[in-house]
């Protein structure tokens, strides 16, 4: 059962609401988000909004007629001075507009929004605190 602490949520235009952990989205071929995209295509739907939740923070993005995508950013830093490895994990939601991509990102330290060129596949990395 999802408590919505660490997941994405979304709604399709038919009024259904979805969560990353919903059983119909669990397939071996790809991620739950890609399955939601496939299901939407099969049923002629589109995603109205999507929200990412992590560490008590959430960020919702409206589709505004554009495709939305949800994913994660993982980073690891290994210091040669012995300060220890630092791992960070973020969840992001992205709106793919014609001339730009708008990213909403949540992590342990906060929430951020960035814009990138429309062909950028790498999630922008929030500043370290």
């Amino acid at each position, binding site marked *: 059962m999802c408590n919505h602490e660490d997941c994405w949520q979304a709604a399709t235009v038919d009024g259904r609401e979805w969560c990353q952990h919903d059983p119909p989205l669990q397939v071996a071929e*790809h991620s739950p988000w890609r399955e939601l995209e496939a299901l939407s295509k099969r049923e002629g739907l589109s995603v109205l909004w999507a929200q990412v939740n992590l560490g008590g923070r959430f960020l919702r993005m409206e589709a505004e007629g554009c495709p939305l995508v949800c*994913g994660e950013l993982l980073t690891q830093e290994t210091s040669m001075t012995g300060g220890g490895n630092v*791992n960070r*994990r973020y969840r992001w939601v992205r709106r793919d507009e014609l001339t730009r991509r708008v990213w909403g990102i949540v992590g342990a330290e906060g929430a951020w929004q960035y814009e990138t060129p429309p062909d950028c596949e*790498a*999630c922008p990395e929030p500043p370290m605190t």
Partner: protein
Amino acid sequence: MANTLTFKTVYDPGGGSALTEIGVTDKLYWQKAGAFAYGATGAIPVNEYNGGFHIIDASNNELCTTAHAVNLARGTADGKVSINGGEEVDVSTVTTAQCLNLVASCSPNAEVTAFTFFAYGATEADAPAGLTVLGFKQGGSAFADIGGSAKALDLGTSASAATHDRYVGLSVKPTSNGAKTCTMKASVTVV
């Protein structure tokens, strides 16, 4: 289960040579050729490449006591490498077992849309001070300078899977006297 990113390399910490995760406070240590020697006695001469590669703990004790991680040193050109002090060969011949291994583990399965790796100094934008760090993606044909975020090594995309391995070879060259350090950073975007 949350997605994770881990950093591994093949060495023998005493129980047999195996792909082993770099521990939370472990460090990568490059030195001149010869037996393990931490500090000035192991110092790589200025403008020369590493002759040895070790995994050490937070107290600078060698962890790879039985078999070291493979030392990759840039040869006479960016496309050449000396493996464990041997005669130089083409970079493209380096195997995965001779490289550092970055592993993105995804649960549930996910695809990688971007994967990068670089070394930095004072800030992510800065190259390490007094140290040139060269890297290549296993299968690639040449070392490239990976100092600073603008020079990040592109490790490519991959289709949906539970694990995504990337193998990286590294070589370092001090450009001035004194102890040198840097931070290695990997970033992966998954959908």
